[in-house]
């Protein structure tokens, strides 16, 4: 009975809400996906956060601060959505710190120059938008609603990045070289953000059937490549792929083979920054513990003695 209602709701393209009956697998998949997404937003504050104190102008500093604050907000919207399924955000944070839950592999790469801030906005947030726009129609209501809010804000992220890069490209040769170098380092990891190829993505079929996912990894990756090539041309940089060319038959860009062994390595913990990212998150959690406890004690005291 309940299962029929669930299947019918999905079939009619309506949303599943937290108190509805749902299969255990759906609940588990949703919690895992939302938590992984939330963790990515929170860990994602670090690569760009590293440049806040070194931003080259007050304008860029204010923009970067607002953007990193948005990432924190996105993480919190998502933890809030995960909690509607019975997860506990303190518990999810512990799972992240203990390496039992994952976050996006992209945040395990270092930000070496200020051009990286621009390239992250353009490519990394651009790829995130490709992934996230279809998730606004995800079958789980609280997740879909959080994604709508996030996508609205994400557009600022991508545009500030591209504008930053255009500004650098109008600067000195050294600045143009810096942009090209950053693009060379971030292009392939950005393509990996869409996950393994469809043939090696065992969960995709079930997630598509449940309408948690609306497009396959390879479809979204192709869409991202098609969008990025003209943007790279307009910027005046070269994407680091000798096989990248327009295919008139497919009406898509062909692109080179992705080094999947690198993605596997980084996901399993052996990327350039994995240890530092988690160590920072752990430190923030531990050093913030007394603040959380003090606030809770203060609230308890106030409640005991009504004003």
């Amino acid at each position, binding site marked *: 009975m309940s299962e029929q209602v669930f299947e019918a709701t999905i079939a009619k393209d309506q949303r599943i809400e937290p*108190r509805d009956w749902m299969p255990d697998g759906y609940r588990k998949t949703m919690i895992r996906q939302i938590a992984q997404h939330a963790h990515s937003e929170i860990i994602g504050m670090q690569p760009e956060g590293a440049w806040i104190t070194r931003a080259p102008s007050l304008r860029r500093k204010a923009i970067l601060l607002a953007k990193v604050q948005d990432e924190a907000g996105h993480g919190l919207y998502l933890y809030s959505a995960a909690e509607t399924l019975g997860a*506990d955000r303190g518990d999810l944070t512990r799972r992240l710190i203990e390496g039992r839950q994952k976050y996006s592999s992209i945040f395990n790469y270092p930000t070496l120059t200020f051009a990286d801030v621009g390239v992250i906005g353009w490519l990394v947030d651009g790829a995130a938008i490709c992934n996230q726009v279809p998730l606004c129609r995800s079958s789980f209501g609280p997740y879909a609603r959080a994604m709508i809010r996030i996508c609205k*804000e994400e557009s600022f992220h991508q545009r500030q990045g591209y504008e930053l890069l255009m500004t650098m490209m109008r600067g000195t040769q050294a600045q143009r070289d810096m942009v090209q170098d950053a693009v060379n380092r971030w292009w392939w990891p950005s393509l990996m953000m869409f996950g393994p190829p469809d043939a090696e993505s065992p969960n995709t079929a079930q997630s598509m059937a449940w309408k948690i996912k609306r497009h396959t990894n390879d479809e979204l990756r192709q869409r991202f490549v098609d969008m990025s090539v003209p943007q790279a041309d307009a910027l005046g940089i070269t994407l680091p792929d000798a096989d990248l060319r327009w295919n008139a038959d497919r009406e898509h860009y062909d692109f080179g083979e992705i080094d999947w062994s690198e993605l596997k390595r980084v996901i399993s913990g052996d990327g350039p920054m994995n240890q530092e990212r988690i160590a920072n998150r752990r430190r923030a959690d531990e050093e913030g513990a007394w603040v959380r406890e003090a606030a*809770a004690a*203060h609230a308890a005291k106030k409640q005991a003695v009504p004003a």
Partner: protein
Amino acid sequence: MSGEVKHEWPLFEVFVRAKRGLNHVHVGSLRAADHEMALHHARDLYTRRNEGVSIWVVKSDDVVASGPDDKDAFFAPSGDKAYRHPTYYAIPESVPHI
């Protein structure tokens, strides 16, 4: 859930009025030690871009909700009361302004 001491603050539901004249609408939840902190966090989290002119926060434990299983008992009776809708009544085309 793990057995260790939980230091999580209680959960609050957040409602935002987008502009004067509109209802407060549920936008999500957050954790805070008390109501005052919940209000401040709600401002920082849910209204970073002029999304609202007024915020309500309510402890999630204080929300009493109908469940999906109550659906029939709660909402089915209104389904067979078609006479509550204006379109139930046939009025000749010739009668103006009704």
